[in-house]
């Protein structure tokens, strides 16, 4: 019965979404507060209806309702409760419903945030595009269109399966339970700033109001996407057994591109606030960022790119492409309609100024996005150009991204300290000289260390160290100067001054903390991508292998029974320079039920030595380990990989500090 209620709720939500779109349009046009209020209520109704549908599906999972097709495909009776619930987004039909549900939550939150506003506020305009996107997803999950079935549908003829197929074991880990929803939340909250941009165009209020309202949503989205992308990398690192966390796979790229564009937007809105420039650019940028969240789904669902993850071909890609094109055309139409109001009031005064540093930053972010898009779509592009399908490996991205990436790193330090309008010799001397000198010293030290270790011409590492140390010095100097000034003015201690400084301008100094996180992240990437070791060997019990300074000796095999799988593996003694350090136990899991996944998965052993990791993955286990069977072992030494996670944590912390700045400037007019 619950499944039927859920299905009915989905169908009813078509009406509530249409009602919302219709009444908001009419009400805002005719200045009819009752109609607008009714439109708002309809958005809430959509949220309630989709919540019912989502709840009904979760109920199906929890009660093991194997008459429901989706439940059978991703769950099974023995699956732990957590993974029965996360099965909600285990495959396409359910993940679309989950996406839709989050979208309705976003709509409800926008209404709640603006509940005290009169009925013609910008937020009401923004609800229209939100409701349109909701309607698109509602239609996808009804099951009326080809290529995707209704996640609440039962098997025809009342069939009931004895048990479900179970979720892929690779997904049955906590970080995989949280990685997809985090990404979804990030993508979906990107819909809101986009909706405000559209609302600004529609209402003609293209001042700073929409920027103020959308900025915080964007920042929220940015924080969540940063966490989500990192959880994905962390999951891949721990679960997939290839010792890395990022491989420029189309799916990874699809999550990374909206992040890049969102980051660009967070910077360019500052220019609009301070200098009233880039109005048009900001609207286009946020539109692009939103479209890239859909494009990601298109790339991964349409089957046009074959990749590890390529979700099988389905017709759904066509719908996404159609929606992307139609909504982009709609925005461009509105832009043309409002063309006169989008003109900038100010112009760039000099190429060497904070404005142009911001613009260069935006160019680089958008440029990087386009480079990554080009590489991701190269299989299609190359086929179109010369009829020969080709694709680019990881090396392409690593090669092409490095120079713009290092320039961006340099800008994270240069941007905050360069003066507005035009750099002066005085500004350069005061702000740049010392950080540059310290940066050069840092680069030289890195060169020395690497040369001693026998690495010749590590040009990019040296550049990265130079830029990183420069940024550190520049940002720390900013904190130091500001804190000292505050302390002096308030006649208090330096630490109190520092606290006051951050409290008074959380957005600015939160941003600087993010920049420090970026530097840390770059250093981690440099170490782990540039200097990892990989050794492979076939070992019998008692035999040893050497990886860098570590000696690993295979001690004994083991096997344990777990909740829904068997864990089997071997234990290794780990020594460094002859000194016993620890025991590591890489294993494989043999799941009793694996859905469409592999039943036998690699469970690497990872041990942290400071910020460096030793990582052991096992190949197929022979039945006769104790009788001299051979085990295939692959061992990685990943230097500085811990620094990657620390860097991201600092970035997220900075984001949260910036986010804590209250939305208090409503009454204060910004520079007009």
């Amino acid at each position, binding site marked *: 019965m619950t499944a039927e209620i859920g299905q009915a709720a989905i169908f009813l939500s078509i009406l509530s979404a249409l009602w919302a779109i219709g009444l908001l349009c009419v009400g805002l046009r005719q200045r009819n507060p009752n109609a607008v209020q009714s439109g708002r209520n309809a958005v809430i109704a959509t949220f309630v209806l989709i919540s019912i549908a989502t709840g009904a599906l979760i109920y199906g999972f929890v009660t093991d309702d*194997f008459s429901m097709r989706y439940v*059978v*495909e991703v769950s099974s009776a023995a699956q732990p409760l957590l993974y029965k619930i996360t099965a909600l987004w285990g*495959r*396409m039909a359910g993940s679309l419903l989950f996406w839709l549900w989050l979208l309705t939550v976003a709509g409800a939150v926008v209404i709640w945030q603006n509940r005290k506003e009169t009925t013609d506020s910008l937020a009401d305009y923004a609800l229209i595009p939100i409701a349109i996107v909701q309607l698109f997803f509602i239609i996808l999950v009804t099951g009326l269109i080809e290529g995707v079935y209704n996640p609440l549908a039962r*098997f025809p*003829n009342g069939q009931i*399966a004895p048990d479900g*197929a179970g979720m*892929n074991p*690779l997904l049955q880990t906590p970080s995989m339970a949280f990685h997809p929803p985090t990404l979804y939340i990030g993508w979906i909250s990107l819909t809101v700033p986009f909706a405000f941009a559209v609302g600004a165009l529609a209402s003609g209020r293209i001042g700073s109001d929409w920027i103020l309202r959308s900025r915080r949503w964007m920042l929220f989205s940015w924080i969540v996407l940063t966490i989500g992308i990192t959880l994905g990398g962390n999951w891949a690192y721990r679960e997939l*057994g*290839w010792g890395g966390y990022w491989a420029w796979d189309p799916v990874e790229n699809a999550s990374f591109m909206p992040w890049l564009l969102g980051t660009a937007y967070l910077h360019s809105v500052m220019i609009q606030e301070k200098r009233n420039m880039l109005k048009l650019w900001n609207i286009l940028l946020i539109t692009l960022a939103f479209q890239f969240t859909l494009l990601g789904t298109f790339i991964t669902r349409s089957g046009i790119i*074959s990749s*590890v*993850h*390529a*979700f*099988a*071909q*389905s017709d759904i890609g066509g719908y996404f492409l159609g929606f992307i094109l139609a909504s982009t055309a709609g925005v461009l139409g509105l832009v043309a309609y409002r063309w006169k109001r989008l003109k900038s009031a100010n*112009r*760039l005064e000099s*190429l060497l100024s904070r404005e*142009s540093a911001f613009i*260069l930053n935006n*160019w680089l972010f958008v*440029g990087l996005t*386009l*480079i990554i898009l*080009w*590489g991701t779509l*190269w*299989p299609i592009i190359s086929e179109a150009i010369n009829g*020969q*399908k*080709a*694709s*680019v*490996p990881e*090396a*392409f991205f690593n*090669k*092409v991204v490095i120079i*713009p990436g290092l320039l961006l790193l340099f800008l994270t330090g240069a941007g905050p300290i360069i003066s507005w309008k035009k750099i002066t010799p005085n500004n350069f001397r005061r702000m740049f000289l010392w950080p540059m000198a310290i940066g050069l010293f840092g680069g030289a030290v890195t060169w020395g260390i690497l040369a001693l270790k026998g690495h010749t011409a590590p040009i990019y590492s040296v550049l990265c160290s130079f830029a990183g140390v420069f940024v550190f010095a520049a940002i720390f100097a900013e904190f130091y100067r500001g804190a000292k000034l505050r302390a002096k003015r308030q006649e208090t201690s330096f630490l109190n001054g520092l606290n006051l400084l951050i409290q008074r301008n959380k957005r600015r100094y939160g941003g600087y903390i993010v920049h420090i996180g970026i530097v840390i992240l770059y250093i981690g990437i440099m170490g782990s991508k540039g200097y990892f070791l990989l050794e*492979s*060997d*076939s070992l019998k019990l008692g035999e040893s292998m050497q990886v860098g300074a570590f000696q690993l000796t295979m001690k004994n095999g083991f096997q344990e029974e777990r909740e829904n799988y068997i864990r089997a593996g071997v234990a290794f003694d780990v020594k460094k320079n002859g000194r016993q350090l620890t025991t590591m136990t890489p294993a494989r899991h043999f799941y009793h039920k694996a859905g*469409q*996944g592999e039943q*036998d*998965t*690699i469970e690497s052993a990872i041990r942290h030595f400071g910020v460096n990791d030793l990582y052991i993955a*096992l*190949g*197929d286990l022979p039945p006769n380990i104790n009788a001299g069977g*051979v*085990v*295939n072992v*692959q061992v990685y030494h990943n230097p500085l990989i811990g620094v990657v996670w620390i860097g991201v944590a600092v970035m997220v912390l900075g984001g949260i500090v910036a986010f804590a700045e209250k939305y208090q400037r409503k009454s204060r007019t910004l520079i007009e």
Partner: protein
Amino acid sequence: MKQRRLKIIAASVILLVAMAFLVVAGIRSTSVRHFTPAALVANANAVDNQKVQVDGIILEGSSKWDAVNFELTFAVREREGSETVNVIYADRLKPDNFTDGGSVFVEGRYDATQNLIVASKLMTKCASKYEGAESVTMTSRAGG
């Protein structure tokens, strides 16, 4: 005023050209041609000793794992055909989801005389996520 605009335009153009150059150079030096097994066999001499990508089905019964030498050998079959290419993949673990009859993606250097790819990269489809044929069999199994 005019001069400044000119400078800004010049800077933008330089940036754009630099980026385009990066991409073109990157593609030139790394792009790997993609074939199906049949197309590779047909063009064998043209791509001898070049890096190629092949994607197809792991020929049923062909895969052999030699644990002692840490070596995986198998043949990739055309999806809807019988042409095959041999593959050797050494010193790397067999990826999860590698089973005869499954989808595979191989990248490596092609030796035309032996019709053999010495693979440097091997990917299987991420099984969690494919829908379609598989779920049909799943459904019929569940129904029956």
